[in-house]
């Protein structure tokens, strides 16, 4: 799956989880950019991402996530 395709699906996940139809995301997007993105909604976000892409993150990888770009890297590496 290429990055473009990943972004397309990932945007859908963000829109569902934060219940906002016009959210856009890019490599540099962080929790500071999205109002409802706090440590609690982050959990829902991660499980929804796992579900969407049919993957499971391990604890180590999850802890290192700095921004959306890093998340996309992780997805890219997990979906082969």
């Amino acid at each position: 799956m290429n990055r473009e395709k990943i972004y397309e699906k990932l945007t859908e996940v963000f829109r569902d989880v934060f219940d906002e139809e016009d959210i856009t995301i890019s490599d540099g997007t962080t929790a500071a950019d999205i109002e409802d993105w706090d440590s609690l909604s982050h959990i829902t976000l991660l499980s929804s991402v796992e579900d969407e892409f049919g993957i499971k993150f391990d604890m180590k990888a999850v802890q290192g996530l700095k921004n959306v770009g890093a998340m996309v890297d992780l997805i890219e590496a997990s979906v082969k």
Partner: protein
Amino acid sequence: MMWELEYPFDGKMIMRKRKSFRRKLLGQPNLMEKKIAILGGSTTHDIKEILELFLLNYGIKPIFFESEYAQYWQDAMFGNEELAALKPDIIYIHTSNRNITAYPEITDKAEEIDNLLERQYLHFEVMWKKLEEEYHCPVIQNNFEHPYFRLLGNQDASNPRGRTNFITRLNQKFYEYVVNHEKFFINDINYQSSDYGLREWADPFFWHMYKYSLCQDAIPMLAFNVANIIKSVFGKNKKALALDLDNTLWGGIVGDDGAENLELGQETSMGQVYTEFQSYLKGLQAQGVLLNVISKNEKENAMAGLGHPQMVLKPDDFIEIKANWEPKSMNLTQMAEELALLPESFVFVDDNPAEREIVKQQVPGAAVPVMDKAEHYVYAVDRAGYFEMTNFSKDDLKRNDMYRENVKRSALQNSFANYEDYLLSLKMYAEIKPFDPMYMSRIAQLTNKSNQFNLTTKHYTQDGIEQAAASDKYITLYGKLEDCFGDNGVVSVVIGEISNGELNIILWLMSCRVLKRDMEFAMMDTLVQECGKRKISLLKGYYYPTAKNGMVKEFYKMQGFVKVSEDEEGNTVWQLDISQGYELKNHVIKVNEGEKEK
């Protein structure tokens, strides 16, 4: 009602789309507000959010208190201002085996293990007692799930030093507490986790990352179970089943195949499946669930099938059997009317998706489980929690008899030209007295379940009822009605509050199973007598309209009250002056006589 939240739901989707679901659910009219405290031994954030969705779907709007992380015991034992200010209607204690602080050592002697068990148990018992004393409300407590590892392997369950054994014993002690505490309920996470798969439920990832005691995806299942207990406590259980026949209660089509060729009984695998489903339904009936049939069939074919020697359910097990070619939605609506139940009290069970769709669309509120494989019928009905049992009263056991008697009464009614003659022929006898300890749970149940013949729709817990009964500021009355066909049990409840020499009737309700029996007049006569004894000469009645209580809009007018005011929402206030006398209205029911005529 949102089908996405009906069993079998997609938990992952609920987690993901919860915000938009919540928005939609909050738009529903007539939500019943309830204050719910969640005391957690681990993270509870998502549990609260998902619980809210399921409760909203049941028409309950929760106002939450949520303890800070793992503060369940502190909040309960040492008080919390916010919690005290909320005055919860119900408390849910979400603890797990992560909250057990010590386990037996492999070297421990039996006596040491018993002491340890007692200490772990008392930690919880003192908290329940404190909560009871402080808040007088129902409490829901998780039991414990099994540990996710077994130090003693398979012997972990049987050896007293094993954690599995220890947890099993601790759970058993919790259940012993249940026996003497009517308002204490267990949320069985031990069953839920094994049903879900303990290995996934207890995934340590979620504990170490977020301090959740269960995995994210299992949260909807947990929250659904808690919501089922809560809705049951507040009287929102289903009451009746409307069952299809062909390929639902038996395999095959009786009209085409003939009764002798139906798949039923022990001879074939499919036959066994239907027999097992019938046994399950029979078990529900024994708990007071009303069984009925709605089938597209010629009546004689339906009866031939029901007479099959291998049927577990016999024709007499059903209150009503509708076998005709009318749309099922029409039959269901009519059935509800005849049994004086709301259509939303029914679960419609049918293997045909087209029939289910019509009922979904035409009978809002009725539950329509997905019945797609006969071998999974029991799951479809059982896991949905329609009949979650919390207040099991003697009345529940007798409910089937009462409805059957009702059917006989309507047969008798048709043989009388004059309605009063019919009522007299019923030889009714009523007991109308101040609240009695023996009936408190039934009275509380009625305040939560009667929505139609209910003037103010004020819900009470058993504690609230007991407090009103004990105070001389209130006049309380329950009405119990018997007739020649049987005992209807407690069917009417009235609470009046005395202030400045007047009586404000803050609660007046009656079960619809005794509509048009003049019981409401007998109640009013007794209430007026009670007022007379206390030198009260003015009675004030209140009617607050809801979506369901339209039938009593003119109730006080019928009782001879005069309307004093009406506001924009249709709330009306009425009064009755009895200083110049009062004419008794009931002439057909004998009230409070030592010996009743048999």
